[in-house]
């Protein structure tokens, strides 16, 4: 009896396990997909690039202060690291940039792999270009970083660090491959729609890849014995025929920004206004810096009213600034000091610049001045200033007047052309990309009179030359990061920073 029962029981249960095989097959994720078409990743990744590089608050929170565009007012605790340059591996500048850019690179790695498999060569080219974009920033911030073993998930849990210069050289090769792909690719309409930067315009992608490559090459301008390499690589750019980003060109992101929380233009959402039209907290935390404002004020620059707002005194013409690092009083707030202007804070759905025409023209001006690309440096330079005026909502005529009348802008009035180009590039980049001027400063020590913070907490009177590796690396990839030696933000320079 007992045995019989056990047999019956066993048979019952095994039949449950065996014949109703589907009973346990309920592990398909009802919440999230586990595979999507490359086009969906492309759209997400391009938008994330904008949100984690040129449109991100971290791109401005320290560099805009160090480059004397903006300054934090009174009544706001903190900003210790920014104001004193004394930051640690836990500081957001060290941690956020690394995390966000590698996160973005995962999507481009997925995109490249999936698009290769599906034969969507346009996407492969975009993935390679955007990887170069992201990695250039990683190298410029951190120097040696994981590259060859990066973004390979469990294959390399502790990716080794590659030499910064080796990465740079490979990026150049990747961009060559990308431009070749852009030459031959065909773009399906659906794929063009997914490309929220250029809508499948291969010429635009070619220009962007070329300009990015030129930027990478120009970065190495001060390295001894590097000129031949740079020239040879520029020759390859010229050969592909796409040219560079010219006036009215440029790469901009706009997925269709909405006036909804989390869906506004990222720069606007941090430094502009909330969904209900009230200004954000950070809007009040970033006010005009004296050096940046005075350059406009003292030289009758019509961009003054575009980069900065007048104060709220009823006159509509008073501009007030704070000296970088000064002790500030409680009454020095957004009511009494100028804030970020409407030339860069245009609307909740403004295009987010990735690379503007004026940045490209300044790069070309410098390259031409060095004799590395064909064309007249002056023409590039003046086109760059003009393009900046137009971007800010001013007219070409106003730009012409400025370029003619102001000694700080007039080509002929300045003997040191490089200093002129870089100073005007610095003036133009305010509020669209504050990292490039910091990088130019590290490379060329220009503008030479860039003020150092006068805060009492400053212990090393020098603008940092890099970010520190994030604390998470010391926790999760310790051997490899420690192998990079002791890193100091004032002395451990990036390979191209030789001065």
């Amino acid at each position, binding site marked *: 009896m007992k045995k019989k029962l056990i047999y019956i029981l066993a048979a019952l249960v095994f039949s449950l396990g065996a014949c109703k095989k589907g009973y346990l097959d309920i592990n398909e994720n009802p919440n999230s997909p586990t595979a999507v078409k490359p086009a969906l990743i492309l759209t997400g990744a391009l938008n994330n690039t904008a949100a984690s590089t040129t449109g991100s608050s971290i791109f401005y929170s320290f560099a805009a202060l160090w480059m004397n565009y903006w300054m934090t007012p009174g009544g706001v605790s903190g900003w210790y690291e920014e104001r004193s340059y004394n930051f640690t591996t836990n500081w957001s500048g060290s941690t956020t940039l690394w995390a966000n850019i590698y996160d973005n690179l995962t999507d481009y790695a997925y995109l490249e792999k999936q698009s290769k498999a599906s034969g969507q060569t346009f996407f492969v080219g975009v993935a390679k270009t955007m990887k170069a974009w992201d990695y250039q920033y990683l190298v410029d911030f951190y120097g040696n970083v994981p590259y060859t073993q990066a973004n390979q998930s469990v294959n390399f849990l502790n990716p080794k660090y590659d030499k910064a210069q080796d990465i740079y050289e490979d990026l150049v090769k990747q961009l060559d491959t990308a431009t070749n792909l852009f030459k031959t690719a065909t773009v399906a309409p659906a794929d063009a729609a997914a490309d929220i930067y250029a809508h499948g315009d291969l010429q635009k992608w070619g220009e962007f890849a070329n300009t990015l490559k030129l930027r990478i090459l120009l970065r190495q301008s001060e390295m001894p014995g590097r000129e031949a390499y740079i020239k040879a690589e520029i020759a390859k750019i010229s050969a592909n025929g796409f040219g560079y980003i010219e006036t009215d060109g440029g790469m901009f992101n706009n997925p269709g920004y909405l006036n909804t929380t*989390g869906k506004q233009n990222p720069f606007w959402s941090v430094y502009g206004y909330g969904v209900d039209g*009230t200004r954000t907290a950070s809007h009040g935390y970033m006010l005009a810096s004296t050096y940046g404002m005075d350059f406009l004020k003292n030289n009758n620059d019509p961009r003054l009213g575009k980069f900065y707002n007048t104060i709220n005194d009823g006159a509509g013409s008073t501009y007030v600034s704070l000296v970088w690092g000064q002790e500030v009083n409680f009454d020095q707030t957004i009511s009494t000091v100028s804030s970020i202007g409407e030339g860069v804070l245009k609307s909740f759905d403004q295009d987010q610049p990735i690379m503007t025409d004026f940045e490209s023209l300044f790069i070309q001006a410098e390259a031409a001045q060095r004799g590395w690309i064909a064309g007249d440096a002056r023409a590039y330079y003046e086109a760059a200033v003009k393009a900046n005026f137009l971007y800010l909502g001013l007219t070409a005529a106003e730009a012409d007047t400025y370029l003619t009348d102001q000694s700080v802008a007039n080509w002929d009035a300045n003997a040191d052309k490089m200093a002129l180009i870089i100073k005007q590039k610095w003036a133009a980049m305010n509020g669209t990309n504050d990292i490039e001027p910091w990088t130019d400063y590290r490379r060329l020590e220009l503008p030479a009179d860039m003020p150092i913070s006068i805060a009492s907490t400053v212990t090393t009177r020098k603008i940092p030359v890099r970010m520190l590796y994030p604390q998470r690396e*010391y926790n999760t990839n310790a051997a490899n990061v420690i192998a990079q030696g002791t890193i100091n933000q004032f002395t451990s320079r990036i390979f191209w920073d030789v001065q």
Partner: protein
Amino acid sequence: MKKLVLSLFLFLYWGLSLTHAQSKNITGKVIADNDGLPIPGVSVLIKGTKKATVTGADGKFTISASPGDILQLSYIGFITQDVPVGNQAVLNVKLITDAQTLSEVTVTTALGIKRKPKEIGYATQQVTGKALTSSRPTNLATGLSGKVAGLQISQANNQIDAGDQVRVVLRGNRSFQGNNQALLVLDGIIVPLNQLNSINPNDIESVNILKGANAAALYGSDAANGVMIVSTKRGSADGGSVSYTNSTLMNRLSYFPKMQTEFGGGTTQDDFGFGQYTPFENQTFGDRFDGSLRPVGRILQDGTYQMVPYTYKDGEKESFFETGIDEQNDISYSGGNENGTTYINVQRVNSKGYVPGDKSNRTAFRINGTRKIGKFLADYSFNYTQRNYDKSTNQVYNNVINTPGNIPLTEYSDLDSKYGNPNDFYNDYYISPYFGLKQYRNKERRDDLLGNLSLTYKPVDWLSLMARGGLSTKNSQGKDFNYAYTYSDFAHDSGKGVAATQYNRSSVRDYNEFESRYTGDFLATATKTFNQFKFTLIGGAQVIQKNYKYITAQGNNLVVDNLFNLSNRTGEIVGSELERNSRQLAVFGDLTATYNDFLTVHVSGRNEWDSRLNSNNRVFFYPAVDIAATLTDVIPALKESKVISNLKLRGGISKVSAVQVDPYKLISTINPASGFPYGNTAGYTVDNQINDPNLKPENTLSKELGFDIGFLNNRITLETSVYLQNTKNQQIVNGIDLSASTGFTTAVINTGESENKGFEFSLNAAPVIGLSNGFRWNVGINYSYNTNKVLGLYGDLSQLGLGDNNYVVLGQSFPSLQVSTYQTDPQGRVIVDANTGLPIASPINKDFGQTNPNHILGVNTSFTFKNFTLSGVAEYRSGNVFYSGMASTLDFSGISYTSAQAGRERFIYPNSVIQTSPGVFVPNTNVTTIQGNGSFWSDGIRTNTASNYVSSAAFWKIRELSLAYQVPAQWLGAHASFIKNASIALVGRNLFMFRPSDNIYTDPEINVGTGNAQGVNNLNQTPPTRIYGFTATIGF
């Protein structure tokens, strides 16, 4: 309701009075033969009737009986005695001890199977419902604290919904990231641990704790963490009785962190570095209190200031918190006859929190019963609990504690008053805590249903077949309310920080959480005796289905202010949905063989199918074996010993395979990228977590050995165990931390091995002292030592983050606390900058050791004399550290005690050194910190360095203290004979706490969550409380 209860009482009184009239009162005293001590709790029954009573604490009883009646006196461990009633009015009885009957006591083990203690080869400990509820906890887990060796109960928070924030761990941690909390079994059915707070503690007959993994064959893998078997009350088979209990408990703030009382509000410093007073500052870096009359807040619209003496206002912050009240009312019925029993209880708990405005209630209804229908026995229990919460979601503790000492905070309680209204509240950067309580609120209703029904059929007397179905559902519906507020033009234009946005629009979030668990069991139990062998064979099968669903939708910028409906919004609805479904199947067998009633071998095995793993890995088998030998039954010297009355040796070994991951964790997901969709434009991004599609179960091998010994007729008992558990193939459920450069930040894989070991003992003396006048002193001591070690992780990884600064570090016990720290020289002295005198931050975190206690000691004691019982529970824990994240905030605001220790002046950093050349450190004797005021204490170099806020987590707590009075049965018989029993008690919980001197912050039990990461707090939890009150019970 009250009227109904009253009339019920009257009815019962009438019924009882009739029987009373026919008899006379007999009083007596029952003592034990061996020690002559009175025995409380002896059942005195008039044979052939349902009339019964029990002896009081002094062994005395009163019963009305007629001459010729026979009194049957019975008590566990004594031979039942019949005493005929003659004409005497006093009847004293001496009961004879019986070792045989003592061994007939049974323990409820897995699946409700009752077994004799001598047959059990693993560690168990039982807590009776009475012991559990002596201090009237509203959550049953808190009533277990200190009462079971090896059990650690942690109450993570004290706000109104604190009952849901309890962590329950037996024998420490095994799994790095998987669940380590004990399994909860209610009336034989597994229910989720989050149902703990919906069980009325007063319904509990007993809680039996299986400490090890040996029950896993019958309950499944979750039992690897030990099991809490909760049995609810069944009706008694002899007649009916009704009892009513009221408990009213108050809870009050017990203490705050230590604060400075010398300096007032301010943030700036003069040219000499001295703090300057700012009337509207949230920080406290102003100048020293001088008693002068000073303005507080910004200038008002009428051109005046509130003027307040510049002194420390003692007790202002403490007075912000109110006295919370928990009022429990229970009415229960217990009754039945030989064909069935019924137990009904209705409980209502009304609570008012100590955070002003917080309130909640719980209504619980339970009906349990048994019915005999022919050869079938049906047993059912059904419980419905509804809870309603209304609480503040503002970080109110932060606002209160960081208020500068010169501020008369309680004056601002009226939000319409001149200085209390939000426009003119003194603080520029934080809203008034009173305003915060009103502006940000959450309401939630939870409906819990627990039920099970079992049918047992006995075709022949050696075989029983049982089918059982059980369900538990939890349904929470909640709503977050953020109220609108418009600041005045004056406040907005004044530059007041909080009024920067003039019109703060209202927003709403709705959510619904549903969780259910269905269990079906089939069990066949065969019991046969062959000569000296007794066999019990159980075969069974089990089906479990778990479903979970969570939906939330949020609407911002409501159009009509404070109309909290999603339709009343502008912009898109922000919402999400999460669903989890899983199924498990199992067959199991369990054989117990007992030889000659002294040696028991128990073997079990379980084969499981789990839908959460792929088809290659989801079928797995795990076995267990344990042996128990009662030496006092076989060794003649022991058998005849007058000293040793019981000696049992036991040992067991078991393997458990567990699936720790949630469903759908085998493949990485791709999710909508941040911000998407933008209208019709979709964009996706690869998730930051990677997964192993071939994930295997996590395996734990547990071994334990122990012995139980009883002395002097088991007046003194000692139960001990040692255990060793090795967990391999750990499922890293939240993912091991990866370098972001891998493209992912976490990976869910099988990796790593841990070892967890310890020993525990439970020593009970009942009584330590017992006198013939009825005085009894009982003591129980529960001690456990637990330690664990990480034997392996993954590849080159040396550690794994659990979040909240907790890490699993190779070669160390886990989780250990690692936090940012300063650079130190080889002697551990802090290195300061030679110019600034400031400590230099280290890029490497410092490891402070484990966050779980090594030592847990619980001491229970009770003194009974006459009708009074004084009892208490104390608990000690040590061996762990904790990080007070809150203290960093206190330094930032300048309210912390530490921040005033250097007099707010530049100082030489204590025990610091200066590096003169690489590797050469000289003591710093003259370089003072470049700043000494707010710019030192509130800046990153201090507040971001968490090692400044780590302290010992050791404590002694007086968990429970109660003084109970049992109204004498004689008195009731004479004055209110319709009342069978009545008692009142004064009770207190967590009345006293003793901490090491370095812990100037808070109760280390308070924690950010109830997960594996422990030992970290912040200002989202509310401060510790003391609970005290009274309780009264009347039985009819």
